[in-house]
């Protein structure tokens, strides 16, 4: 039965090439746009290097002090606070402390100025995260403790500064007139990996900040690696207990401290929504994204519905014959849905191709520094879900109309209006 449906579907598509083209255009471009957006989202919040073990990682990057008179004070955390309360957590496998953001340093090569984004990290940073080493090695805990003047550069910076990557290791690089010895070169990290991105990584002990400052608020963050994905809630709960027992810095001024161990997506959404609680507003974000996606789908789907309804009336006599020979309404609905899903699947394949092209274009434009967007199995999965959803959304109403056609009228070609 399915095969014969597909045969008919194929013939219908070929019979009216113009309408097939219109439909395919709509479907494939809709899908392309959705896939590009999803691939970009996945690139920001999915498991990619260096946060390859995203399912085991937690980020403590912000603290919020709530004033008694209303209002809040938000910031990254103090190094000393993290050292005392995060390093001592029992449940995680490893904890890494680093600068919460990045700062700019200047290097001069000949008469050229290189502006580099610099991040201070500890030695564990390289163990918790999975960087891709092109040459050399990361700096270790001892070098960090001794405040050794060492640096890890990204590939592009090494190439621009030294001419080629292999020659960089062991040579000095001068940043803001301070010399560091390059110990390793890693593959470029995109700026959209906001927690780990930099162009030059330096030992945290070289920071000019006073690391012994006991303030809760500061410029630092902790990246926590759980032993396994299932331990993530345990770590979150343990950190929550720490926060709950934390004395207020000035009880006259403040009434509450908020800080959470967020997942990768949570840490991103929490930047915009500090009220989001332990999951950082990730659920709200997901819901909002789904609604927006649905709204975007609506117009192309409606368009396809309109074309489909018109074509259904055009095929009235075929439907009349089928009904006359005993096809039930349900069967006709099935047939039409199969046809429409077949069409949207074709559009889906085209859409994947278009999305791959669009992403390649985006990568080569360097519009977002160091971004290398690509399709992966999650994007394929998303494509399949969207296509099926789209196929059913745009096929259901025309199919219903088709099944309601009166066979006698349909045979006379008087489909009515």
């Amino acid at each position, binding site marked *: 039965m399915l095969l014969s449906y597909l045969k008919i579907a194929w013939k219908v598509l070929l019979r009216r090439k113009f309408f097939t083209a*219109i439909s395919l255009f*709509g479907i494939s471009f809709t899908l392309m746009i959705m896939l590009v957006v999803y691939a970009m989202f996945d690139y920001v919040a999915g498991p990619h290097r260096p946060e390859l073990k995203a399912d085991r990682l937690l980020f403590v990057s912000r603290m919020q002090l709530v004033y008694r008179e209303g209002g809040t004070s938000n910031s990254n955390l103090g190094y000393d606070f993290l050292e005392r309360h995060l390093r001592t957590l029992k449940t995680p496998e490893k904890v890494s402390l680093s600068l919460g953001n990045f700062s700019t340093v*200047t290097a001069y090569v000949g*008469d050229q100025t290189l*502006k580099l984004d610099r991040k201070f990290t500890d030695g564990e940073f390289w163990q918790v995260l999975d960087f891709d080493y092109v040459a050399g090695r990361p700096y270790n805990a001892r070098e960090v403790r001794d405040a050794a003047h060492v640096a890890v550069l990204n590939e592009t910076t090494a190439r621009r500064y030294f001419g080629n990557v292999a020659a960089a290791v062991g040579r000095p690089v001068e940043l803001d*007139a301070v010399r560091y010895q390059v110990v390793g070169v890693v593959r470029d990290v995109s700026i959209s990996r906001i927690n780990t991105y930099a162009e030059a990584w330096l030992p945290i002990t070289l920071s*000019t900040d006073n690391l012994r400052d006991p303030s809760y608020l500061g410029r630092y963050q902790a990246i926590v690696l759980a032993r396994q994905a299932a331990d993530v809630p345990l770590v979150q709960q343990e950190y929550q207990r720490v926060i709950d027992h934390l004395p207020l810095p000035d009880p006259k001024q403040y009434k509450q401290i908020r800080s959470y161990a967020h997942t990768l997506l949570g840490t991103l959404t929490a930047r915009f929504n500090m009220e989001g609680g332990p999951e950082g507003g990730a659920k709200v974000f997901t819901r909002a994204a789904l609604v927006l996606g649905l709204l975007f789908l609506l*117009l192309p789907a409606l*368009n396809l519905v309109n*074309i489909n309804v018109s074509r259904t009336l055009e095929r009235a006599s075929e439907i009349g014959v089928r009904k006359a020979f005993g096809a039930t309404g349900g069967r006709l609905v099935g047939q039409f849905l199969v046809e429409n899903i077949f069409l949207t699947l074709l559009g889906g394949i085209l859409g994947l191709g278009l999305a791959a092209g669009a992403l390649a274009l985006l990568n080569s434009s360097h519009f977002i520094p160091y971004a290398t967007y690509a399709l992966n199995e999650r994007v394929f999965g998303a494509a399949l879900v969207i296509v099926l959803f789209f196929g059913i959304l745009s096929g259901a109403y025309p199919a219903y109309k088709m099944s309601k056609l009166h066979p006698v009228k349909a045979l006379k070609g008087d489909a009515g209006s």
Partner: protein
Amino acid sequence: MLRHLFTLMWNRKRANGLLILEVFMAFVVLFAVGSTGVYLWRNYQAPLGFAYENVWQINLNSGSQPRAEQVATLQRVLAKLRTTPGVEVVSRTEDTTPFSYNGNSGNITTGTGDTQRRTEEADFYSGGPELREVMGVRLVAGRWFDRRDETPTRRPPVVITEATQAELFPDGQSALGKVIHYGFHENQERVVVGISGPYRAGGELSEPRSALFGYISPQDTTTALNTLLVRVQPGTGAALAKRLSDDIRLTSGGRWSSDITTLREQRLSKLKVLLTLPAVLGVVCVFLLVNVALGLFGVLWLNINQRRAELGVRRAMGATGAAISGQVLGEILTLTTFGLVLGLLVAAQFPLLGVFNIKAGVYLTAMLLATLGLYALAAGCAFYPSRLAAGIQPAVALREE
């Protein structure tokens, strides 16, 4: 004829319901893009009020130096920079520099009680006596900050823009010498010493609004310690930047570092950020509209094929080919009008409710543009099908059944 079309389309509203819905949504899309476009374009047309070429911003990082020592170091650094060849003028400022993402805003008030007047949200900038020369701000009346302002017993001076003056004193009297209040230090009295032209540090795409400049005295030891704006001679480049950076480090005994960027770079980087979303929105909307256009065209084409008999009868009854194509065109425009009315009802809520605090004129212009665009889209889609309808041979069409 018009009434005939309305009757016909009204009676077909059930069959055309989805089409009307599609037109409605296309209108919403056009309206959204139109509003964004008109808003940005209007902003872009307004004068910037300053010259960004050959101006550099220097961010100073004093590292772990105690605050008490910083002022003295800053004075040494300023003196050094001012004598460096290639540097024309240097001014201290706060971090609300042109094309930065930092802003300081609030209401400005004047008078008290019943006679108090208050501006809408306005931008607060601050600068030293040299800022006007660095940025090329136009002075309309009064004077810029100078040595007279250093007398500590005076009430702090302030320079306001023409727009602020117009907002605070709508009766046209001069604001010079008047007392105003603004921002965090709401109780502090400030005296207007000058009226300047516009100043939109937010860049070309920011909304033009009232603004004022607060005064940073050369003796100020609490604010504006970390940011400098420097006008350099045309044609200077990386060599001077490196020299300035070295000078700053050496003058501070190796404790300070600096980050030098040109305002030209900052402007491009901000434009990129601000234009990305509208550009993406634009591309997506163009796609949606092309999609709608193709769909509408397809539906109309199929429609004509199904209505051959009816159109044949009309020909037989004496309608000319032009009348038939006019009718098809008229029908789709009528249908568009139905969707449009729905869309306008929704769009009208934006200026009525003052959504996003944007001027009603922007929304009204966008509504007009969207309406014209929609009619053009519909007429474009109907053109070929209407020619097709005009070409129907009545004898053939009537024999088909």
